[in-house]
């Protein structure tokens, strides 16, 4: 039982780190996209709404990153043996749901769209991986709580 708890805690620690890493990746990806596709963004948003779009997008990405950090650090903390509230799992669930929707949209774009196929495939792979990690994180967190409960009985 102790070995199972240790293994699950270790998994949770690693998964928490990966969630933070993927959050960081999203931030970097958006920054690079923003600078590379500067003209395209102006074309789409129009010059008047440009700054609003930019600030709003940055805000959303940053909030998403913060949420990921909260989820990731909570998972790491729980992986080190500390007890954490269920709140981070709720956020993890929300991010998972959003990611699921994003992946569905990417799959549709892959089928329907003809541009940047390689980019779409790579993005899909990364997003699916991120989704798997989030699901694994939630599974391991629930597992640990169950094991601890069984252990205390």
């Amino acid at each position: 039982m102790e070995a199972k708890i240790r293994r699950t805690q270790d998994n949770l620690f690693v998964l928490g780190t990966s969630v933070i890493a993927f959050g960081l990746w999203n931030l970097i990806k958006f920054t690079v996209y923003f600078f590379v596709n500067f003209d395209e963004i102006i074309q789409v948003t129009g010059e008047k709404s440009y700054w609003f779009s930019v600030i709003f997008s940055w805000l959303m990405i940053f909030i998403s990153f913060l949420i990921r950090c909260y989820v990731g650090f909570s998972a790491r903390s729980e992986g080190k043996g500390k007890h954490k509230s269920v709140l981070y799992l709720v956020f993890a669930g929300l991010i998972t749901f959003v990611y699921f929707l994003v992946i569905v949209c990417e799959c549709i774009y892959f089928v329907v769209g003809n541009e940047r196929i390689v980019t779409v495939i790579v993005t899909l792979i990364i997003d699916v991986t991120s989704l798997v990690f989030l699901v694994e994180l939630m599974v391991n967190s629930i597992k640990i709580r169950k094991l601890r409960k069984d252990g205390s009985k």
Partner: protein
Amino acid sequence: MNSDFHYYATYCAAVLAGYTHDESLAIAYSDRFVDLCSKTMLSKLKAPAAAATTQLPLEMADMRTDIVGLQHITRIWSSFHFLPRDLYAEPQGRCSKRYKNKYRLICGPNGELLKETVKLAKGKSMQAVGLAMHVLADTWAHQYFAGTPSLVINNTNRYFYELFPSEDGYTEKKITFRHSATSPDDLDNSVYTCSLFSNSENSIMNLGHGRAGHLPDYGFIKYKYLPAWGNYEEILKDNPSDYTHAFYQMVYAMKFLRGAYESFEVDTYDTEVSEDVQKEVNRIINTRQLNSSDDWKALGEKLSGCEIEEFDVDKYQSEYKDADKDKKDDTFLGKFILSALAQKSMVTNKIYSSGNKLAGYSIDYEDKGFKGIKAYKSLVREEDKV
């Protein structure tokens, strides 16, 4: 094991086994010498490099960790310091052959190879006895680690707790590891030195018990940790108990080698010593100090009634260097070198015969005719003499 155990404690065990003072000194010297007989020293003596029983940190830093380099490292460390317990052990769960081969090199006491090691020294020189005792003692101290560089076997993590006896059983204190080769271990604050983490599977940092620092070599310490091979199961290492077993098994083994017993069986210990001696051995092993040389020396001198000289690594070197080529095997170091070659040859052969090529290839020269390293011809000459 620490140098104090390999020299003075072995001397004490030899005296208790019935050896004379001079014989006990020769045995103890050879035991200690196993930790010093490196390729560098042998090249200084113009002795066969194949007889190296250890590797200096600088030699290891220079070692390549390709397949040939790894086999060379494994041959030395598995033969003399991390004798495998069970070459046919099966790990839990499914694993690759590569992992299985490394798992099978995990050191532990009372294995078949230990029996072979002790029997190999039967009827041989005091140097062979001393070398066998070194290997025997290290099977207790270095158990749970393998004599091959492997992250998946020898790595440890932050989960490392020292256990102190208390009224309710034991209290735990977390061990802090640092990477300072020059600073001595801090026993009061449980701060110890260990090797740096390297995520490369075959890095030298992952050889033997480097990741656990010197903890396996301290007789007084009791601790628990999670070895990489252990599947998150906790290992409790009770060094006082292990060292006591090692000591009395050495007495038993040396009595067998003297002819007092007909056979050598594993998991057998000779505790036919006076209560005073038992108490003193127990006290020395359990005393919390980095070096117990003075205590062991005092006990040894009390047992034999003779003065035990300090270990001097240069003592027998000029004898070997000045001897004629055909007389070198009869010198003190010459006999040690022959014993080392025999031990290395035996262990490498056993590992190879089990289907494991981590220690390289081995040929039975009696069956196949002689092929191989020139240095091992001296073993053939020895066989012919017998």
